[in-house]
């Protein structure tokens, strides 16, 4: 089963995402901000990274930029969690190398569908 890294500074969001994905059999790890996410991603290759945008200590866009520059994550699906209003964030995310995004609020079903989509 693919391993997924979820990066979000909101504990409830992480809990929800991790619980949903673990329930579907994925191997999930959590990181509390961009810097933590980068450290964890460097420590072990994840198949998918899902990250929030607004976070302290490196935001999601910067994290994606860093990750995409690493050989391990050259082709890895890197997904952004954004709010509907943040169209500029989507563009900034794309420019940084994001694969796609998921619009908040989303429910567990939508999350699973998206992850399934990119996990092939």
């Amino acid at each position, binding site marked *: 089963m693919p391993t997924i890294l979820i990066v979000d*500074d*909101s*504990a*409830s*969001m992480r*809990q*929800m995402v991790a*619980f*949903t994905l673990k*329930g*579907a059999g994925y191997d999930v790890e959590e990181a509390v901000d961009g810097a933590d996410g980068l450290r964890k991603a460097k420590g072990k290759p994840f198949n998918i990274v899902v990250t929030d945008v*607004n*976070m*302290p200590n490196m935001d999601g866009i910067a994290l994606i930029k860093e990750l*995409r520059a690493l050989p391990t994550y*050259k*082709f*890895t*699906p*890197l997904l952004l969690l954004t*709010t*509907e209003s943040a169209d500029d964030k989507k563009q900034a995310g*794309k420019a940084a*190398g*994001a*694969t*796609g*995004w998921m*619009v*908040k*609020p*989303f*429910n*567990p*079903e*939508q999350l*699973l569908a998206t992850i399934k*989509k*990119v996990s*092939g």
Partner: protein
Amino acid sequence: MTIDMSKFLDTFFEESAEGLDAMESGLLHMQDGAADDELVNTIFRAAHSIKGGSATFGLSEVAEFTHHMETLLDEVRAGKRAVASDLVDVLLESVDCLRAMLAASKSGSAGDPKRAKSLSARMAKILGVATGHVVVTASAQPVQAASGGWRIVFRPHAHLYRTGNDPVRMLRELAELGEYKVSCDTSRLPGFVNAQPEECALSWTVELRGEIPEKRVREVFDWVDGDCDLTLEPLPASSEKLAPDAPAVQAVVPVAKEKTNGDKTSTPAAPAAAETTSIRVGIDKVDALINMVGELVITQSMLGQVGKDFDMSRVEKLMHGLAQLERNTRELQESVMRIRMMPISFAFQRFPRMVRDLSQKLNKKIELRMSGEQTELDKTVMEKIGDPLVHLVRNSVDHGIEMPDVRRAAGKAETGIVTLNAFHQGGNIVIEIKDDGAGLPRGKIIAKARKQGLLGADEEPDDNKVFELIFMAGFSTADQVSDVSGRGVGMDVVRKNIKALGGTVDVKSESGKGSTFTIRLPLTLAILDGQLVSVGEQTYIVPLVSIVETLQMKKEAISAIAGRAELYRLRDEYIPVLRLYGLFGIEPRQKDLANGLLVVVEGEGKRVGLFVDDLQNQQQVVIKSLESNFKRVPGVSGATILGDGTVALILDVSGVIDASRQATAPSGLGKNQAQIRAA
């Protein structure tokens, strides 16, 4: 798959409370003119997270309300809006409102929608938009179907793989939309020698039949907009069939696969039956704990080995192992206790806001200074010290600091200073609340006390005695009852609450220069350093902090007054002797004062000597509540279980001193003691 979102709500409420605190303190700083980018970002992030979380977890009113806050903050963040005081005001009020809304959701009550509405309207006015229903949940798709289907030419750019996207995924998604026929164009593929495996050189043409809205097709390519050339041509609505050999993977799948968002999540979760509390613990503390457990396991296995083939030659090893076990246990205990310790900033953080609001209300100019916020104390103590602190700070603001003109006339700066300070001292935490105001009105206090009959008409008390008076029930010298303080409920309750925590509160004041309230509290309520004393068959525990000294009495220094009361002359002081056996109604081994020991204890500034048979060792004891297991007993603060399994009562020194002063006390306490033994 259905997932009950309510299980994440507790975490959401908790992090929202933290976020709101951060917003509040950020907004207060912002108002001071220090609106740097990071600060604004922090505030924005908090609002953003609360909005995202509340929408996800089905708290739509909260999400809607936060939306305006977020928009305002986003404009500030983008530099489109200046930080004006009306903006900060409305945001601060919104923080309060959000707190109330979240509390209401948590308890399942209705809350106050009017307040939210009027704040929303104010924010909308600042934003210059019409108030209306802001939709934060995903909107429904407008359906505009092309009856025949689509011919899609999808030509990815070379770098597509490096965005993490896979053309096969998109093709697979298209196949799920309708009748599907695909052909692959390999003409752009370079020869084998020039092959670039990391680049995409293929393109595809898809014929998709069925009533599929264009939007639905474009959605599939949403993520690769700009990373490919995409053309969509509607197919004529003919009944032309696909070639039989077409790789049609799937039958026609109805489009209505997508559910509308939130049908499961928008029902608010039932409120949790019992409130559970949790604490955040630094990972270093947990690591320390794990280390200790490791050590403990090593010691245990060592002792196990000693015990395996035990003979007297190994006694030394056994003793060594036991000593190590003791050390491990103590360190483990300390590590566990540290987990419950939190910086006092959690209790302090509400004050900047409070002082700001109060000084506005009272038209005073006040600066709040805080230091020692990182001083740690037990969570349970922290929770209970909040209200007394609020009261004391309110007092300083309301009674302590003068109006600006009065201050100017007195030659002081217009802005008064209230200082909160915390530090450790011995086994205690000391919290000081200091103001540079007028000081306690000595004359007024004396006059009031005389009027209430607390002081004799010709009595001229010293400062200590005067200031003690403010802690009497129903004592207030405020000229006017204000919103802020001066209703006469207060200082006595403050002292009572602090006493209940095993702490003390003192006041020092100098006319014209200000007052300082000093609170001393034990760091934890769970463990206490105690001196074990024996009286007859019983063992009692005297808290070590209250013991001044222990001595053998000299016969010539004992004097009895009026039959019952006995005094012991210790150097220049006469100390009342309290026979513990008499207080608790038990049979001692020693009745002759000269043969027993006197433990001199101090509580609330008074000293008494406790007469006991003997002293045992000193040790840390774990406090078990007598109240929750039995009932409240005057003179006893709790109980503990000793190493041999017997129960020992922990003396409440102030309670014992109070009890000793009441003539009826001995029988009352004795009766309780008998009940405890019976129980």
